[in-house]
C-alpha cells in the first residue's frame, strides 16, 4: 500500500514535469524559437496559444514580438557648417526573424548594443554631412512675418532647406536598415527627438538672440519716434494752412469791403470835391488841435478880421 502510494506520487510528479516540459504557451506579444540541445529546430512559432514540443531535449526560447524601444545616448555631433549640437535619436524596431536574431545576437541586450553602434554611426554620418538648418527644419515654410520683423532674421536661418529633418531621419533609417535584416531585426523608424546646442554654442546663440531682439526693440522705438514726428509735422502743416487760409479770407473780405466803401465815398464825394475837401479839413482841425498846440492866427483870417475893424478890412 505504501509502496503504491509513493509510486503514485512519483508518477504524478513525472507527469507534471513531462507535461510542463511538453506544453508551452505563446502569448500574443511573444514568439518562440525551439532549440534542440541548443540548436534551433524548425520554424519559429509566432502563433499565440498552447503548443507542444519534445520534453527535455527541446527548449523554448521566447522573444518579444512587439515594437520595441531603442533610445540612443545623446551624441555631440558637428554639422557640416561646424555647429556643435547634441542629437538624441530614438528608434522603433522589432524582431522580425527570431531565428536569425537568436543566432546572431542571442538576446535583446546584444541587440541594443548592436543598434547603438549602427544608428549612432549613421546619425553622425548624416548630420555631419548636412547643415544645421537641414536638421532643424522640415519644410521651406515661410515664417509669418510682421513688418517690424523684416530683415531681422539671420541669413543662416533664411537659407532654404534642401532635404529637411524628416528626409534626414529617413536617410538614417535607410542606411541603418541595410544591415539590420542580417540580425533578424526590422527597423521601422528612426527619429531625432532632441537637438540642442552644446553649451558654448548656446551662449553665443543667446547673445545673438539678445542682439536680434535689441534690433527689433530699437526699430519699434525709432518707428514710434518717426511716426510721432510725422504726426507733428502734419499738425504743423495743417495749422499753417488753417491760419493762412483764415488770414487770406479775412484780407479778402476786408479788401472787398474797403473797395466797396471807397466806391461809395468816391461816388458821393465826387459830386462836390471842393466841399468835401473843406468839410474834411474842418473835421481834421477838430481832431488835430489840442491843448499842446500853438495856434498863430493872423488878424487877416476869416475869424479875426473883425478885430481890426468892424468892416473887416
Amino acid at each position: 500500500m505504501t509502496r503504491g502510494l509513493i509510486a503514485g506520487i512519483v508518477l504524478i510528479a513525472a507527469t507534471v514535469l513531462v507535461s510542463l516540459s511538453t506544453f508551452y504557451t505563446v502569448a500574443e506579444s511573444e514568439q518562440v524559437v525551439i532549440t534542440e540541445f541548443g540548436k534551433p529546430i524548425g520554424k519559429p512559432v509566432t502563433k499565440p496559444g498552447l503548443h507542444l514540443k519534445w520534453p527535455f531535449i527541446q527548449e523554448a526560447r521566447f522573444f518579444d514580438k512587439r515594437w520595441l524601444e531603442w533610445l540612443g545616448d545623446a551624441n555631440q555631433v558637428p554639422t557640416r557648417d561646424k555647429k556643435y549640437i547634441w542629437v538624441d535619436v530614438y528608434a522603433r524596431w522589432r524582431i522580425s526573424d527570431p531565428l536569425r536574431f537568436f543566432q546572431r545576437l542571442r538576446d535583446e541586450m546584444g541587440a541594443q548594443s548592436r543598434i547603438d553602434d549602427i544608428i549612432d554611426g549613421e546619425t553622425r554620418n548624416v548630420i555631419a554631412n548636412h547643415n544645421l538648418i537641414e536638421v532643424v527644419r522640415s519644410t521651406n515654410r515661410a515664417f509669418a512675418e510682421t513688418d517690424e520683423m523684416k530683415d531681422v532674421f539671420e541669413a543662416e536661418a533664411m537659407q532654404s532647406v534642401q532635404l529637411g529633418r524628416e528626409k534626414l531621419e529617413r536617410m538614417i533609417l535607410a542606411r541603418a536598415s541595410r544591415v539590420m535584416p542580417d540580425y533578424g531585426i526590422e527597423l521601422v523608424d528612426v527619429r531625432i527627438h532632441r537637438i540642442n546646442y552644446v553649451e558654448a554654442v548656446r551662449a553665443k546663440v543667446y547673445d545673438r538672440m539678445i542682439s536680434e531682439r535689441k534690433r527689433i526693440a530699437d526699430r519699434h522705438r525709432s518707428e514710434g519716434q518717426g511716426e510721432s514726428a510725422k504726426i507733428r509735422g502734419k499738425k504743423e502743416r495743417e495749422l499753417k494752412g488753417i491760419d493762412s487760409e483764415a488770414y487770406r479770407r479775412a484780407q479778402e473780405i476786408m479788401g472787398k469791403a474797403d473797395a466797396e466803401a471807397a466806391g461809395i465815398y468816391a461816388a458821393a464825394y465826387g459830386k462836390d470835391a471842393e466841399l468835401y475837401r473843406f468839410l474834411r479839413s474842418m473835421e481834421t482841425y477838430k481832431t488835430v488841435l489840442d491843448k499842446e498846440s500853438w495856434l498863430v492866427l493872423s488878424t487877416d483870417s476869416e475869424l479875426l478880421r473883425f478885430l481890426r475893424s468892424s468892416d473887416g478890412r
Partner: protein
Amino acid sequence: MAGNGRFGRETEDPLGDMLRRLREVPRRLGLIAVLVLGGVALYSAYYQVEPDEVGVVTRFGRFVGTTPPGPHIKWPLGIERVQNVPVERQNKQEFGFRTVQAGVRTEFGRDSGTEAESLMLTGDLNVANVEWIVQYKIADPYRYLFKVREVRATLGIMSEAVMREVVGDHSVTELLTVGREAIALQAKESLAALCKRYEMGVDIQQLVLQDVDPPAPVRPSFNDVNEAIQERERAINEAWAEYNQEIPKARGSAEQQVQAAEGYAVERVNRARGDTERFLALQGEYRKAPAVTRTRLYLETLAAVLPKTGRRVIVDDKLRSVLPLLSIGKEVSP
C-alpha cells in the same frame, strides 16, 4: 473493567492502530487537496472589471476577446488570464514641468531633467522653452497590450520628437505669439498619425501648449521688445493727442478771424454809406447858399477848436516883428 478494557484495547495492538490511522491520512489529504484545488479554481475563475476598464482575456496566451465592466467567469488555473485595461481613463503626460501637487493652487516642479525636455531649437535657429501636456486614452486595448512595449515611455519620446519637429519649422516669434495654436494643432495631428503608425492603440485627445518662454538669459531682451512696442504706441498716441488738441483750436481761431473780417466789412460799408449820406444831405443844403454855409461851418469849427488849443497867438500881418518878442519857450514849459 470497561475503563480498563478501553485502555487495554489501545495497549493491546498499538501498531495496528497506527497503521489504521495512517491509512486514513491520504484519504483525508486527498479530500483537503480537492477542496483547496476547487477553492483556488473557483477563486481564479472569478474576476471583476471596473467601470473605467475593459478586461482583455487570453487563453493559453492567445487573445480571445474583451469583456465589459462587471463580474465575470473565466477558465481557471491559468488557462485563461485577464488583464484589465483602463480604456475610459484620461491619461496625461507633462513635458518641461511636473505637477508636484495638484490642487486649488497647483505646484509645478522644474529641474534639469524637465529643462532637457523643454529646451528646443526653433526654425530661425533660436532657442525656446516649450512646455506642453498630452492627454490620451487607450482606444484599442489589444494593440496597447500586444503591439508595443512600454507605451507610456514611447509616447513621451514620440511627443518630444513631434513637438521639436513642428517647432523647428516655426520662428521663435511665431512660437511665442501668433503661432501657438497652429503649432499645438499640428503637433497633435502629427503625434496622432505617429501613434497610428506604431500601432500603439492610443488615441491622442489633446495636446496643449503651456508656458512657452524664451530661455532665461534672453528673457529680458524679449520683454524689452514688448516695452518698445508700448513706447512706440505711446509716442504715436501722444502725437495724435497733440494734433487733436491743437487743430480744432486753430480752426476755431481761424473762423474767428474770418468772422471779425466780416464784421469789419459790414462796418466799413455802413460807415461809408453813413458818411456819404451825411455828406450828400449837407451838400444838398450847401448848394442852396454856398458862401454863407461855408463861413458858418468854418466859424463853428474854429469855435469848437480854439478853446481846446493850448496857446493862441494873434498877429497882425502888418506887425512883422512880433514873433521874436515872444518868449515861446517859457510859455511852453509847464
